[in-house]
């Protein structure tokens, strides 16, 4: 009887917690379907009186959200593909290739992990400006391209590839690139998949760097465009909530389908690291 009471109490706590965690998201969706001005009544309504898609239509027609959506998609996808290739190669090199200064370079990289990303933004901005990459989508991808923790993660994983396998391929006359493509990449599959979902997420959600680098309205990604819109349409709660939904939906769907990778990635990374 006591165990039963405890079980019920435990579940009650969990349900309350889940409602608290989910309610801002649910309200966002609900408000985005309300008619203009409906959310600004007292007491605030929880559900739309008669759901409407008018705000979504406005976003994609007069407010050009489709353009920003596309920019975000290019930045996140391009950034992810390049990051997976770069961390894959770097992690493998640190694990398996012998070159001068390998240990010291790797140690310097690890030390660099404590440097907040924002600290590098100022010199990075000047550098990109000299290279003419300011206001380009490629410029907006820069911060996600070579994550140090990613290189570290891949390296730990790559250490388990048997040296014999690599040497056998080399004896058979395979070039280093061939070895990387046909042996290393496939065996790094799972860790690169985990890395990929995290990179996509952080590239999609990134705000401060795109805000700095993308100055031309047509190149904005969704978060920057949304913050910009919020300045002009502060009173249009329902419209802004529709914009928030559009921004969040892709990463949310990705999360629903790929949550295994998120959860494994975080749990594995923290235990080893």
């Amino acid at each position: 009887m006591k165990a039963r009471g405890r079980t019920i109490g435990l579940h009650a706590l969990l349900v309350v917690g889940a409602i608290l965690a989910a309610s801002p998201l649910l309200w966002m969706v609900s408000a985005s379907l309300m008619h203009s001005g409906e959310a600004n009544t007292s007491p605030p309504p929880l559900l739309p009186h008669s759901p409407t898609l008018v705000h979504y239509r406005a976003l994609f027609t007069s407010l050009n959200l489709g353009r920003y959506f596309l920019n975000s998609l290019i930045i996140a996808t391009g950034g992810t593909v390049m990051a997976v290739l770069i961390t894959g190669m770097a992690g493998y090199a640190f694990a398996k290739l012998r070159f001068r200064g390998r240990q010291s370079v790797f140690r310097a990289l690890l030390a660099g992990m404590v440097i907040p990303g924002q600290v590098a933004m100022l010199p990075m901005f000047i550098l990109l400006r000299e290279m003419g990459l300011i206001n380009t989508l490629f410029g907006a991808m820069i911060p996600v391209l070579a994550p140090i923790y990613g290189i570290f993660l891949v390296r730990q994983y790559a250490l388990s590839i048997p040296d014999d396998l690599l040497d056998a391929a080399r004896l058979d006359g395979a070039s280093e690139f061939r070895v990387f493509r046909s042996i290393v990449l496939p065996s790094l599959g799972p860790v690169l998949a985990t890395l990929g979902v995290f990179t996509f997420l952080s590239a999609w959600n990134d705000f401060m760097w795109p805000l700095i680098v993308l100055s031309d309205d047509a190149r904005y990604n969704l978060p920057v465009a949304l913050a910009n819109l919020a300045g002009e349409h502060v009173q249009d709660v329902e419209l802004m909530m529709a914009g928030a939904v559009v921004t969040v939906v892709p990463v949310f769907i990705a999360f629903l389908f790929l949550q295994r990778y998120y959860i494994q990635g975080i749990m594995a990374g923290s235990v080893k690291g």
Partner: protein
Amino acid sequence: MLGAFVLSFTDFDIYSIANLGNTRVVGLKNYHDLATSPQFWIALRNTLYFVVVGGPLSAAVSLIAAILVNAKLVRFKPFFRSAFFAPWVTTLVAMALVWRYIYHPQYGLLNAALGVVGIGPVDWLGNPHWAMPALILLSVWKNFGYNMLVFLAGLQSIPEELYEAAALDGAGAWRRFRHVTLPMLGPTFVFVGVVTMIASFQIFSEPYVMTQGGPLKSTLTLVLFMYEEGFRWWRLGFSASIAVVLFLLTLVGTLVQLRLQRHSAP
């Protein structure tokens, strides 16, 4: 990092952007200006407030959530785990917008809910005393799911035999938690502490979207200050000195936490 360091000793500004040749080395002038800028001290205080209050609060919520989800009696564990983790995958800017309306003094959900239990309307984002706690609440909600997973991993790595042995010795639930769970989670605490602290020092989007640093600069943070100096007024040299201070704070904070951990370890 080195670039920021070098930059902080120069007067790099809007004229240097036109032509790099207009940049001069000014030694410690930027740091002197920083030390005498009232805005800097306000930003520093606000940032420390956010780190010192928000960090531990976030870690505590994560630990409680992890323990609840991990309890043996709980069914539908994956469901609760995903529900708690969901806010973490969302876009911060979008969520800051959502919460700006939730905090609305007149039509916001929070005041409506508090009104039910008889607490008067609070102007969350318009009152200098409440604006920072409001930002802390948002970021705890947004981020606790991540640390919850980290704690879950830690909890699941504790061998079941330890609990059984403690129970045999007559230890109750609280003492098992105090003497088995907490010490075994030691390394996890360090990880959570350091990662959360580094992230907290970088708070930027929440004040940028919700309050622009106001009211009365009560939510002006170091990174927001750095952004405004560097990319609104184009004083990149001065801005770099803020970046260097931010880096030193993070470094010292990390070392202190590692040291504390070494001392408390058995």
